[in-house]
């Protein structure tokens, strides 16, 4: 597993990245459009090489609770699913956040609500960034826009998860999952040894040395006063993330009069629309949030000062647009354009929406 140039699907890249980044265990249940993740893991048989466990659970509910159990011991554990499956996992996710268990969850979104369609969508933004499960909690949410980022973000997710003792969600969609692009793989990061795990997860339930008391992993606290103290601690952690971990990419924004704000595959389509707009003499640019939580509010507010209008492009009825409006405090016109239910907007449509809703509107 040395550095190599490959051509693969986003879903395959996730599986390869898990193995290469020293993941200890994967628990999942198949669902389109992310089934290639487990298919690739099963074909690669990492249990014979790195020792990584791959298990098809009986359901998504079982998967997420297996993640809870495995990751509570400090091991690097992951699961993947698509929208309806991620909905089933919400109880587990809030427990993981409440118990401060680092782990990796990947949602390759499809159209909803309900079982919906199997085509790409981005209608789980609210679920991902505004809770989803109950209680005041946040998942650190990364939005890859290419096969390379699907791969790279798995490596980065472990660092963030353990740095903050927080679950990390990679929020992707069927288009990036199914698309094949060039990928530069990385050198294999060996799975942690027992000593490394104990050092990296001193809070984990890996045994009780005489030198300390019991490590207890739980999200239950019967004393409200203590729960409030703990919640303050969680909130303080989230403020640190918001301060230090916002990521975004700006493309052709320096002289832009109008910008698209879009993440994931919508950002790719919007990039094409930027090129088409520039050919027509419209000074368009793209602001791409890479972290959806924490949302890059400050950077966007700063960029918004120079522009005449903002169009958010999402494969939803309008979810991230709320964060864009909050970030820009209504100082600039912000409109939403979206296709949903599994329909992918075309670059032509996106450009027309900019012209009709923002420039003329």
């Amino acid at each position, binding site marked *: 597993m040395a550095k190599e*140039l490959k*051509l693969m699907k986003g879903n395959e890249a996730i599986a390869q990245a898990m193995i290469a980044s020293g993941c200890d265990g994967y628990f999942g249940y198949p669902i*389109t*459009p992310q089934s290639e993740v487990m298919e690739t893991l099963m074909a690669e048989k990492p249990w014979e090489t790195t020792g990584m466990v791959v298990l098809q659970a009986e359901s998504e509910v079982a998967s997420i609770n297996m993640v809870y159990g495995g990751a509570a011991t400090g091991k690097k554990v992951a699961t993947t699913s698509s929208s309806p499956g991620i909905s089933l996992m919400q109880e587990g996710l809030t427990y993981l956040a409440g118990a401060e268990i680092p782990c990796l969850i990947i949602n390759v979104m499809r159209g909803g609500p309900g079982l919906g369609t*199997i*085509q790409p969508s981005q209608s789980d933004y609210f679920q991902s960034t505004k809770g989803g499960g109950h209680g005041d909690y946040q998942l650190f949410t990364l939005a890859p826009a290419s096969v390379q980022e699907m791969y790279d973000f798995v490596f980065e997710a472990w660092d963030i998860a353990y740095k903050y003792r927080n679950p990390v969600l990679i929020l992707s969609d*069927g*288009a990036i999952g*199914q*698309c*094949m*692009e*060039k990928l530069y793989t990385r050198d294999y990061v060996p799975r942690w040894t027992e000593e490394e795990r104990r050092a990296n997860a001193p809070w984990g339930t890996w045994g009780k040395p005489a030198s300390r008391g019991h490590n207890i992993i739980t999200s239950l606290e019967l004393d409200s006063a203590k729960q409030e103290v703990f919640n303050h601690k969680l909130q303080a952690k989230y403020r640190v993330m918001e301060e230090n971990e916002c990521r975004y990419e700006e493309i052709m924004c320096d002289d832009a009069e109008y910008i698209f704000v879009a993440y994931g*595959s919508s950002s*790719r*389509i*919007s*990039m*094409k629309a*930027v*090129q088409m707009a520039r050919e027509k003499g419209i000074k368009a640019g793209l602001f791409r949030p890479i972290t959806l939580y924490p949302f890059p509010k400050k950077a966007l507010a700063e960029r918004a000062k120079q522009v005449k209008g903002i169009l958010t492009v999402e494969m939803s009825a309008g979810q991230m647009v709320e964060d864009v409006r909050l970030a820009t405090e209504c100082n600039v016109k912000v409109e939403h354009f979206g296709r949903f239910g599994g329909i*992918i907007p*075309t*670059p*032509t449509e996106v450009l027309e929406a900019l012209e009709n809703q923002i420039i003329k509107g």
Partner: protein
Amino acid sequence: MTEEIIIAGFGGQGVLSMGKILAYSGVMQDKEVSWMPSYGPEMRGGTANVSVIISDERISSPIINQFDTAIILNQQSLDKFESSVKPGGVLLYDPNGITTPPSRKDINIYKVAAAEKAAELGMAKVFNMIILGAFLKVKPVVTEEYIEKGLQKSLPERHHKLIPENLKAVQAGKELVEAVQTL
């Protein structure tokens, strides 16, 4: 150079694998590539299509709706994608099963009787490679040397013995393609 291509036909005709071989050949020739399938409840006999982009620059969107070249392998796909070829672009089709041929006047049109040729050669499975050869004759976006490398990369090793047969089919496609309308 950026070449934006749609390949569309019936499931089982090798549409997706042809796109994959083309994309892999692009990778081997140090190009930027993307391969975006229409996925879904498709099945053998249903329609299938894939957008492939080969470029010297970073690819913005793998999802596109205007194409430099449309490679069309059945009537449904012709009906669906003829209007999506950029003016001055290329439409390449196999006349097998086509009842209403393309009618646009502002594009280049080529045809290749690949299904007929594949049957004649007794190699139905390399039908898509005949098409690929025809495309490369019209638009040499990757060279033949890299097609061979692309085949080596995209086919599992147990199928590598079939590579010479595939290259022969590419050659046949190059010889077979004919211009219907050039601007």
